[in-house]
């Protein structure tokens, strides 16, 4: 068991049956009362953020979670197959667990896989990926300033919005958290 003196950013603990990670904490001592730790935590399954005021001495159950770096290999039925980059063990993770992140998960990319009680429960992509454009309307030369955009397909099959000057074969940088186009890295 942990207690409040163990609290630090990134500590993984169980709250009401779910695993949480500490994202912020502050020592507080209200009006001559006991010391408390105001603790902001993120639910590792739902992403929801809660705040709890834990009293000094409160016991905290460690969450049995582990993050492993894995390489995404290929899809197989309703699963994605990953390989542990240290042990070379392969693990299949349901497509539902990966969710919409699959749009920005090209083959051979390295991701962080979160295990809770030895079961894979989530995948964290790098914040940015580079992808070649596979389909889009032809570009308009010289039009680099307006905010206008058009749909384009990338290597994973996902559709994003890109500026009008982008052509098929251009390699672009994409923010995986928002799906936003960031910049063109190279021309076709």
């Amino acid at each position, binding site marked *: 068991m942990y207690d409040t003196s163990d609290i630090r950013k990134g500590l993984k603990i169980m709250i009401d049956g779910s695993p949480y990670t500490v994202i912020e904490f502050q020592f507080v001592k209200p*009006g001559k009362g006991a010391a408390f730790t105001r603790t902001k935590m993120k639910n590792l399954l739902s992403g929801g953020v809660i705040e709890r005021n834990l009293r000094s001495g409160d016991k905290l159950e460690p969450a049995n979670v582990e993050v492993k770096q894995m390489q995404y290999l290929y899809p197989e039925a309703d699963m994605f197959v990953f390989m542990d980059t240290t042990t070379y063990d392969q693990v299949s993770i349901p497509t539902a667990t990966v969710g919409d992140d699959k749009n920005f998960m090209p083959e051979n990319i390295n991701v962080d896989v979160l295990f809770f009680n030895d079961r894979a429960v989530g995948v964290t992509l790098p914040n940015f990926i580079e992808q070649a454009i596979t389909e889009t309307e032809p570009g308009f030369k010289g039009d680099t300033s307006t905010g206008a955009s058009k749909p384009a397909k990338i290597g994973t099959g996902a559709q994003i919005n890109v500026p009008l000057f982008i052509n098929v074969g251009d390699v672009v940088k994409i923010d995986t958290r928002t799906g936003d186009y960031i910049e063109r890295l190279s021309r076709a």
Partner: protein
Amino acid sequence: MDEGARLAGRRAALEARSRVVRAARAWFEGEGFLEVETPARVRAPGQEIHLDAIASGAGGDGNDRWLVTSPEYHMKRLLGAGFERIVQIGKAWRAGEGGPHHQPEFLIAEWYRAGAPLAAIADDCEALVRVAVRAAGAPSPALDLSGPFERATVREVVRRHAGVSLDGDETLEALGAKARAAGVDVAGRDSWDDVFFQLWLDRVEPQLGRGRPTFVFDWPAPLGALARRKIEDPRLVERFELYANGLELANAFGELTDADEQRARFAAESETRARLGKAVYAVDEKLLAALPRMRPTSGVALGMDRLVMLALGAADIRDVVAFADDEV
């Protein structure tokens, strides 16, 4: 970071701090206060359950010495000898306190007015905040000093922010039921003050002193410490806390001068400290002897580091000291 660069970066804050402390001393002098110095190393550092003192070896009499957690006891011994308006701006130490608003070593301003009501001390605090903000010269836009500070009571703010109707003399069970009804999880909270402060921290305190500073008066008797009961409602004590911009700035008492009641509270606190496995400190008999000789008196402790934080809009106490505990 390189220490030279770190200290250079804090220069403006340290200059403002110096101006604030000087302006505070000048203000106290103008109000007719005598500045006193009482020992930092004492036999009885304060009985409060949740304050832990730092050991400081043995005294010449062979007894243990502790660093003061506040200069209260010796200042009251002066009051018992007829001193009427005394202030001390000096260091105090509290073991195990660290965070954005806490350092184990900090600067405390503690002052007393013999014969004055608690409201006079609130007026002092309000004047001192204005003096500090003017001296610092860079008022935080989040701080609204345009009008008088808000003056509320614990019952009012608990009703307003938690929807709980507090009496002050309910049993632990009744208080727990009220907190649970308001949706506050008090599982594992087995003392009156723990239940109260869970409710306070979850629901009330984050709302206090936003913009305009707020005095919160009339604390429940179980949180009385060294405060006297209110004659008109003995479920409450004469105590206020001052909140400003999320900082708990000052704690004031209408001072208890009944030595028998003070002795009983010390005994109860010592018993709780022993039960919690904490150090049990000597009872200051000279303080108990001085209490009945005191006139009705009001007094306060105000955190000077936090006053500088408030005046500068600083978020972390480190920003207003040259050397934090892990930088010595």
